[in-house]
């Protein structure tokens, strides 16, 4: 299986928990003989590198340097994510099995790649805008929520880290319950759970 992970933070650029989480996950995936690529942001360390753990990482910068908010920053960075992912796709003989996108930032790229090239994606949720902004409904928050909604709608599978998060996704976005799989990083078999989700996404989410 060939997988691309999209995450807006990855070591050495650490913002929150996602950097460490995706780093551990990609290491585990390689150990399980999954060909693992990762696309992430870095302001200047751009290009493709192979990490000691065997993960191939494409780092992209934002071609637009000046921004008026996180939304414009994200919505211009996504084209670079698309470019990096498309390069991987074409160099791999047009064969990527699944994209795993972490949080809303790179959902637009995942949606485009799905519709353009037929690569399915898993939307892995770490946090939701409704919680981050304490239920604020200003245009700015609604725009982020609309991107989160697009992710839930277009994803083949969704992963959440707890039962509570799954119920919140259902409450806010009316996502079907059987589309959401709980992956707890504490359990020893979490990697096999992740691989299961990937397989289901590849099969259109129909098989279990």
């Amino acid at each position, binding site marked *: 299986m060939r997988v691309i992970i999209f995450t807006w933070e990855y070591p050495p650029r650490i913002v929150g928990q996602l950097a460490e989480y995706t780093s551990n996950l990609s290491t585990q995936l390689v150990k399980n003989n999954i060909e693992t690529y990762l696309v992430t942001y870095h302001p200047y360390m751009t290009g493709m590198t192979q990490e000691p753990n065997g993960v191939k990482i494409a780092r992209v910068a934002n071609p637009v340097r000046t921004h008026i908010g996180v939304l414009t920053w994200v919505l211009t960075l996504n*084209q670079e994510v698309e470019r990096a992912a498309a390069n991987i796709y074409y160099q791999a003989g047009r064969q990527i099995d699944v994209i795993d996108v972490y949080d809303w930032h790179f959902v637009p790229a995942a949606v485009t790649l799905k519709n353009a090239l037929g690569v399915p994606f898993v939307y892995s949720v770490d946090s939701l805008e409704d919680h981050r902004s304490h239920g604020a409904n200003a245009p700015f928050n609604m*725009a982020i929520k609309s991107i989160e909604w697009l992710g839930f709608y277009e994803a083949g599978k969704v992963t959440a880290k707890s039962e509570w998060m799954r119920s919140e996704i259902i409450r806010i976005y009316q996502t079907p319950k059987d589309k959401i799989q709980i992956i707890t990083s504490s359990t020893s078999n979490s990697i096999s759970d992740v691989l299961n989700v990937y397989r289901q996404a590849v099969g259109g989410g129909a098989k279990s």
Partner: protein
Amino acid sequence: MKSSLSVMFLTWEFPPRVIGGISPHVFYLSKSLAKSGVKVHVVTCDFPGAPSHETLDGVEVYRVDSYKSPSPDFATWVYLMNLNMQKEAAIIAARLRDKIDVFHAHDWLVATAGIGLKHVFRKPLLVTMHSTEIGRRDGIHTSAERMIAETEAWLTYEAWKVICCSQYMVSHVKWAFGLPSDKLVMVPNGVNLQVYENVRKQDLKSFRTAFALPEEKLVLFVGRLVYEKGAHVLVNAIPKILEKVNAKFVFVGSGYMKDQLSTVVRSIGLENKVLFTGFMDEESLMKLQCCADVSVVPSLFEPFGIVALEAMAARSPVVVSDTGGLSEIVEHDFTGVKVYSNDLGSLAWGVTKVLLDEKYRNGLRENAYKRIREKYDWDKIAQHTERIYESVLGEYSKSFWA
């Protein structure tokens, strides 16, 4: 010979959605391209009452959700709209399976959609730069403006060829983004003469009375009421013109300067001589252009100046600022009158000269009409555009993307 080319246009406006000059440009260019056998797929923003898909004279038009949720500001809306446009365009292009040869974006308003589509489908991207942020704003003053200017730079960087509608814009875009000369190509804007001929055949006497008294000359300004279009220069020139000629000044269009301009008009006591109509439907606008005794284009920045071309098609004499694309369209004293940009004395002189001399006025009309028929015909412009596509595809076929 019929072509087998297939192109996807990305544009934020297409009739019936008309905001500026991009809409008519894309409309006529796509129709003329389709006439010569190019398959054109236009992906554009939706509009109330307009179908989400229709075939217009061989052109496939797709109108996509333009993101109606509230956005924090205009620029953020543009990027959010691009997210939907890119998704829908990807679905259409994927359904056509390798049938899109070229993506053609019109302005930064569809920059991110165009750039993304180029990379995921690995097809060449062309862009027509209809304007620039640094030109529109006469410099870059805010973060939002800088962000837009950098997005424009990125778009021209990603484009295989950058098309501009005038020599002025070629040099402006080259300067603004530091592009190599061989990346730029000039293809003029066009104008459809037939639609104006049809309007001119009608009896417009009673239509005219809604705007001006029979003894008043009709001076027409058409454009957004924003700084770069220079409506304020014409407003300030009105007292000087009225010293010599009895005229009515009609301003068609709206914009952020509208309140300011009407305040000026009120304060100098000329409300009975000036009319702000706001936005006007195309049919009425063409009638009004045919009625105008002079059409004034007092722009401070003008990439092309389509409104001057339209006035010439309506056989209205034109007075334009000697700036940007207008300098190339109008030949002074022959097809129109050129005046100094941002100079109310010069503008008043030009307008008065045209209004006081009927013979001179008619001479300008005839010469201008002859000139645009030779130079600004959409079918010729489409053929030129098609040759650009072919040369880009020739280069592309030798690249590792092909």
